């Protein structure tokens, strides 16, 4: 249900500003709108932002040291006061951590540099002289470099004016070439024709072997230093993970508040706050302001024509998690209707049909219940966990209706004789199952059309409701009645006639009134004809529900083949192989069924959402609302418990 928004204006003394914002933040129900015409003073905001950055840096440093939080552990609960109190200590620690981490990084990079130098010097190990001697000389030009072994012979071409020597063996050989200065150019050109790579010695004294030794010695001391720093870091980090996480959240809360402060309009003594508040939260918001000061002026009004309020919905406990499914599509337009409460029952119904296996339903529902119970997830994850929980329950029921339990027939499991399936076995009577799917599809699609009618009526636009929507209900139901009576001989002929009449009536309504904005009767009928073509889109919408059948049966087929596979493993006549087979089969069964549940739950989730988005929402839903983002507590690591709003 969409809750109407009120535009509020609050004026109060500037010295109460900080406290009022704090109180408003605790209500988590005011979205502040920029009211400040001048460039705001952002020094406080910049400082708060810096805190957040510092602490998030510290969190990155701490990550390898922090204790792993279990997959199912709930977030700790704290009050704003306690986590804010941790800020100074955490900030001091984060500075310490930052400097240690910086030292560590510089040590690491120095070690890496040394290692690269050692690696490049390694082929020159047998070079017998001081490296500096061969870098430049008055009348002789030295070339140092690496030559491919295949080109070694070719060097004899420059025998006449150059000397050369090799210092290593292998595919690539280190080589020193000496020649008089005046021949340098021809040697350079000659080397270009060979597989030659120039190499210049690092600026170090001694022979390459000595340089390698000294660099290695240096790295040994650096390694000690690295170890030292790492222990220091681990020591600083130990046990402080919670501290920094809490402080990070506190810093974010403060930053959000500072940001809100920059959006206020200021006079010399007062400030003015403009914002959006859901209608039913007006009272608690004013209460929060009153708790700080008596000197204020608080007024609220409906949104003006040109203002677009954020869209905020509230639903029953059952439907609320399904808001996440709607959000993935789009937020409702604040002037339209919230589709979630209408969509939720259909979602559960269709989801169960796509999995339709009691065993899988039990596993899914239990897993989600455990997750909700232990982890206490909030936001999107909490929503999806609850959606899947209801989906699991529905899957259990559908499993009984079509008679499958972990891919086995219910009759085999319970030893009953043909009690199950309760309604239809999709494997042996696929056509009946398809008809059931299309039936649900018709119901779903027409319910969407009916909602559009309701919306049009509530806007006093009865023409749209009757001519554009009700006419389609007549056509679809009429055609179905006509088709059914001609397909089944037992159906009374009257039903077919009524159906045909209804469909004709609907078609006539569209033909004559669809283009009611146009005066010219010919143009009007033509646009009606165009609209009648929509019958194909209704047809494809309804056929689209065949996916219910396909996905449902696919789950069962895969599961039963897995079962057969494992049964074969257990079937060996030799005892020892049989025992081994049973063991392997047990492990395999669990893994294979887990895989099947995972992949088909994903499939059911996606396809169910698609049926809602395209076939159902396409009929009536008006999108484009902006999310309501009140000033509140957007924490990552802890859950704030002292919010006065709930």
């Amino acid at each position, binding site marked *: 249900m969409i809750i109407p928004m009120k535009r509020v204006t609050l004026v109060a003394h500037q010295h109460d500003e900080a406290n009022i914002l704090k109180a408003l933040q605790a209500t988590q129900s005011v979205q502040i709108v920029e009211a400040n015409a001048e460039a705001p003073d952002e020094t406080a905001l910049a400082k708060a932002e810096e805190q957040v950055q510092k602490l998030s840096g510290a969190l990155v440093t701490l990550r390898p040291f922090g204790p792993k939080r279990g997959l199912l552990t709930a977030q700790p609960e704290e009050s704003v006061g306690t986590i804010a109190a941790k800020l100074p200590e955490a900030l001091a620690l984060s500075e310490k951590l930052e400097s240690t981490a910086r030292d560590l990084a510089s040590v690491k990079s120095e070690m890496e540099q040394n290692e690269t130098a050692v690696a490049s010097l390694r082929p020159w190990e047998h070079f017998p002289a001081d490296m500096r001697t061969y870098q430049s000389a008055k009348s002789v030009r030295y070339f140092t470099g690496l030559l491919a072994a295949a080109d070694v012979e070719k060097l004899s071409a420059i025998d006449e004016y150059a000397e050369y020597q090799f210092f290593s063996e292998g595919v690539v050989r280190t080589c020193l070439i000496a020649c008089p200065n005046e021949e340098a150019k021809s040697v350079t050109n000659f080397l270009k024709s060979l597989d030659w790579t120039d190499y210049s010695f690092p600026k170090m004294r001694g022979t390459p072997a000595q340089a390698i030794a000294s660099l290695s010695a240096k790295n040994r001391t650096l390694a000690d230093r690295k170890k030292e720093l790492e222990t220091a870091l681990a020591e600083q980090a130990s046990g402080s993970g919670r501290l920094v996480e809490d402080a990070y959240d506190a810093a974010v809360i403060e930053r959000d508040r500072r940001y809100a402060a920059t959006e206020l309009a200021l006079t010399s003594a007062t400030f003015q706050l403009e914002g959006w508040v859901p209608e039913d939260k007006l009272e608690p918001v004013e209460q929060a302001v009153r708790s700080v000061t008596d000197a204020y002026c608080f007024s609220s009004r409906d949104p003006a024509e040109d203002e677009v309020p954020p869209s905020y919905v509230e639903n029953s406990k059952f439907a609320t998690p399904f808001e996440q499914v709607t959000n993935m599509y789009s937020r409702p337009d604040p002037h339209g209707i919230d589709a979630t409460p209408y969509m939720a029952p259909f979602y559960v119904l269709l989801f169960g049909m796509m999995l339709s296996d009691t065993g899988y339903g039990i596993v899914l529902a239990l897993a989600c219940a455990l997750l909700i119970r232990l982890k206490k997830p909030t936001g999107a994850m909490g929503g999806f966990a609850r959606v899947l929980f209801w989906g699991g329950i529905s899957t259990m029921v559908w499993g009984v209706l079509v008679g499958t339990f972990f891919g086995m027939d219910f009759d085999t499991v319970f030893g009953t004789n043909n009690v199950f399936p309760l309604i239809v076995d999709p494997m042996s009577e696929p056509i009946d199952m398809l008809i059931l799917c299309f039936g649900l599809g018709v119901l779903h699609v027409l319910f969407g059309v009916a909602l559009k009618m309701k919306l049009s009526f509530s806007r006093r636009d009865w023409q749209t409701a009757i001519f554009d929507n009700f006419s389609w209900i007549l056509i679809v139901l009429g055609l179905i009645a006509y088709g059914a009576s001609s397909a089944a001989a037992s159906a009374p002929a009257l039903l077919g006639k009524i159906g045909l009449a209804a469909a004709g009536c609907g078609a006539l309504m569209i033909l004559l009134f669809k283009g009611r904005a146009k005066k010219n009767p010919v143009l009007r009928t033509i646009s009606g004809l165009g609209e009648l073509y929509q019958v194909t889109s209704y047809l494809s919408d309804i056929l689209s529900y065949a996916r219910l059948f396909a996905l449902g049966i696919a789950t069962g087929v*895969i599961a039963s083949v897995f079962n057969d596979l494992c049964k074969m493993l257990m079937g060996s006549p030799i005892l020892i192989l049989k025992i081994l087979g049973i063991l392997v089969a047990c492990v395999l069964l669990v893994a294979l069924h887990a895989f099947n549940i995972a992949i088909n739950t994903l499939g059911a989730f996606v396809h169910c959402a698609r049926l809602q988005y395209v076939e159902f929402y396409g009929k009536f839903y008006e999108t484009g609302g902006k999310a309501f983002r009140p000033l509140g507590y957007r924490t990552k690591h802890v859950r704030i418990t002292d919010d006065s709003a709930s």
Partner: protein
Amino acid sequence: MDMGTIYAAIGAALAAVLAGIGSAVGVGMAGQANAGVVSEDPDRFGSCLLLQLLPGTQGIYGLLIAFVIAAKAGLLSGGASISATNGMSLLIAAIPIAFGGLLSAIAQGKVAVAGINMVAKKPEESGKAMLMTVMVETYAVLSLLISFLLVNGVKI
């Protein structure tokens, strides 16, 4: 060995091989993308791995059909022989998952690569990347379904 059994064996092999090739290509492409992302940010490994695994299901579907055909034609026990018509029917029944699996796995691999790249830039959108990738899976499931129904319909 008579022709019926040979046809059935070809069908089983086609289902396993073609769908398997598709999955191998798909998972391979996604794996390369995954490695690239993880080299920059090891924390992304979990969500990227999930995306990488998605094109792998076609291979399993192919294996399932191969197994069902083999069991039906008595290839596993090595006993009964079947008529040429039945063998040919089983071979044709393998076609949907063989080609549906091959091409859908490759297409899904491409979407998975794109999804992994998306996760690299916007980790919070990994759910959407998964949804997009799963959409391609539909057609593999449909192929599997038809293959299975066709195999099931062969009366031996």
